[in-house]
């Protein structure tokens, strides 16, 4: 799993690539934690290169969402397709993240 972070003005974009699952979510969480501690308020998570997601991966994104929102910010998820999109819809997260 790769995660590229780009900060442009007040927005942070996180582009994920590969499988976001029980194996890789623990690798990604510290990157998400840093975004939170940096006080970023507008975060976009681009998952168009994510091939598979499981409940652990969903948990990492939801955790990021809750913490950013608690500080008055917002998190958008973009680019979901195929299996990841199906999982977001199953868990009724497509509307939460603007998919």
């Amino acid at each position: 799993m790769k995660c590229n972070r780009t900060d442009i003005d007040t927005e942070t974009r996180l582009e994920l690539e590969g499988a976001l699952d029980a194996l890789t979510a623990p690798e990604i969480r510290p990157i998400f934690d840093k975004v939170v501690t940096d006080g970023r308020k507008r975060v976009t998570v681009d998952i168009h290169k994510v091939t598979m997601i499981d409940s652990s991966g969903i948990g990492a994104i939801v955790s990021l969402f809750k913490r950013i929102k608690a500080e008055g910010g917002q998190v958008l998820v973009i680019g979901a397709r195929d299996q990841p999109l199906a999982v977001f819809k199953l868990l009724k997260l497509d509307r939460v993240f603007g998919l």
Partner: protein
Amino acid sequence: MNAETKPSDAGEPTVTHVTFRLRASLAHRSLAIGLVSTLVEHVKSADRDFRNAITTAFGEAFNNVVIHGYRNRTDGMLDVEAELGSDHMTLRLIDDGVQADLSSVTPPDLSTLPEGGLGIFMIHALVDEVVYDSGTRNVLSLTKRT
């Protein structure tokens, strides 16, 4: 990996049985899911939604075996028996780790955006039949029909 196709009797659809065995490790998760995804190609009427559902459910079940069933163990093995019909697929995950009742689940309140406890719910939501038998070995059967 072993595969056996039952000869088609008069009027009976052909069913293929495939088994594979691998170490129950998260490092092998993508390999196991890839194998299941390949097997879906032999379910004639399966479409993309079917593939997404059965591979996602299998992945959650795999996680449960590794993380909970074989907690604090690195020597756990997982046997997978797949039954492939023209209109269905059954996966049996067999392990000898700690047993866990996966046959029933209390649906989570999705409106609260839970960060965990979703795996078993997802399994039940994605397949048509879930059977868990914790005898000498734990056997979780997942059946998905097209």
